């Protein structure tokens, strides 16, 4: 449970920091990577769907509260992708680099697609034109690159702190 709360805290922190330094980062490197989405995937693939749904809900709600977009617009893809990624726990092979990159990119595409469908249904821009914007592809690329990095960090955090902590708790 400790990992869930830590990941949730980091997700919310990244969402808040995104409102403060996000545009500075975006101006510097062309787009702001979707850190919370990558964290969600990494958590889900390691710990399963039980908690990743709630992590998706927390991150999505925070984003919707901080952003100008309507409530539910981010919650929807985050919860769905959190669930689908969590269901894949133990069923998909993940090497340290290549597959996480592929999944990170696919996740970004899926997120963009869900946002486009919802945007078109509820009249929220930019809708499907998101795919014509370079910022979307750049964001997806950054997400793809960040996925193995976060996976590495998560695996090492589990090995070094979380597992010993959980074992101590059980005793």
């Amino acid at each position, binding site marked *: 449970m400790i990992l869930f709360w830590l990941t949730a805290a980091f997700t919310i922190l990244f969402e*808040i920091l995104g409102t403060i330094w996000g545009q500075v980062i975006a101006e510097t490197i062309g787009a702001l990577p979707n850190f919370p989405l990558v964290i969600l995937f990494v958590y889900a693939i390691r710990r399963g769907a039980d908690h990743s749904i709630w992590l998706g809900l927390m991150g999505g*709600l925070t984003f919707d509260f901080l952003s*100008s977009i309507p409530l539910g617009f981010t919650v929807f893809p985050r919860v769905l992708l959190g669930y689908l990624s969590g269901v894949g726990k133990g069923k998909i092979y993940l090497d340290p680099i290549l597959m996480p990159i592929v999944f990170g990119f696919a996740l970004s595409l899926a997120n963009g697609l869900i946002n486009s469908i919802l945007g078109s249904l509820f009249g929220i821009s930019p809708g499907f034109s998101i795919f014509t914007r370079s910022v979307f592809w750049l964001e997806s690329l950054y997400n793809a690159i960040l996925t193995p990095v976060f996976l590495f960090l998560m695996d090492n955090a589990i090995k070094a702190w979380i597992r010993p902590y959980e074992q101590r708790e059980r005793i």
Partner: protein
Amino acid sequence: MPSKESFLKKYRRGVITFGILFLSFIALLGQNASFVQGIEQGGSTSLFVFQNFFGSIGGWFQDTLGSIEQLQNLQEENRQLQSQVQDYQGLEQRMLELQQENALLTQQLDLSTNPSYATETAAIVAKDPSNYYQTFTINKGYSDGIRVNMPVVAAQGGYYGLVGKVIQVGLGSAQVRPVTDPQHIVASRFFKSRYEGLVQGIGDVNLRLRMDYVPKSAQDQIRFGDLIITSGMSSLYPKGIALGRVEEVRPIDYEPNLRIFLKPVIDFKKLEYVAVILEEFTGTGEADD
């Protein structure tokens, strides 16, 4: 036959996911309902505390790092300023002449030179975390008299420029959608030639604006750098607030109108403080060109 309990146990995750997705869908369907907006306002108000906290830490780092850079620039700036002072002494005389001329012209046009609004000054504390939206958060909200749809302006380069409008209000914070956002449309006109049009953000990296519905017949009277102001045709924005200057005029063969690209008078990348117009007093308050 499996019981209801075992079904829920087996598909618990799926049921929870479906439930949340269903609620999200309902929230999106009722996005304009006061209940949904109330939840959103409550959420943004409570998160504003953290936003403000991290924003102040960020501001401190930014100020500290900035001050080191500033020290390096001060010497050079000082030298430049000394030479500028000499230039300004010559300009002073010219300015007095222009002031007299301006006063005369203003009198002729029967316009007020000073916009008179009751405003609430606010600092920008956060920006939209998404790559696709340009809204920002200010540190004043409902308790300061801010309401949805109030116009937001800022003084920069000698102009009261239109920044945007308030789209969401929390107790101590509010979200502002800038004019550079593609969802923002403002009824406007040329200050000199008085042609009207609609100005809209185009969402590009240069934060330019686009003015549409200006007839091709106006092309001869449009010059590079011409000022565009709000026309006051919609009840949302007061008349005469500066919007931008003409940067590019593009006639399109198959359209009777021109497509004009503007550079906003407000430099949004440098914007730190804004003023929310709470109330407009009598007088048209057009900007000087």
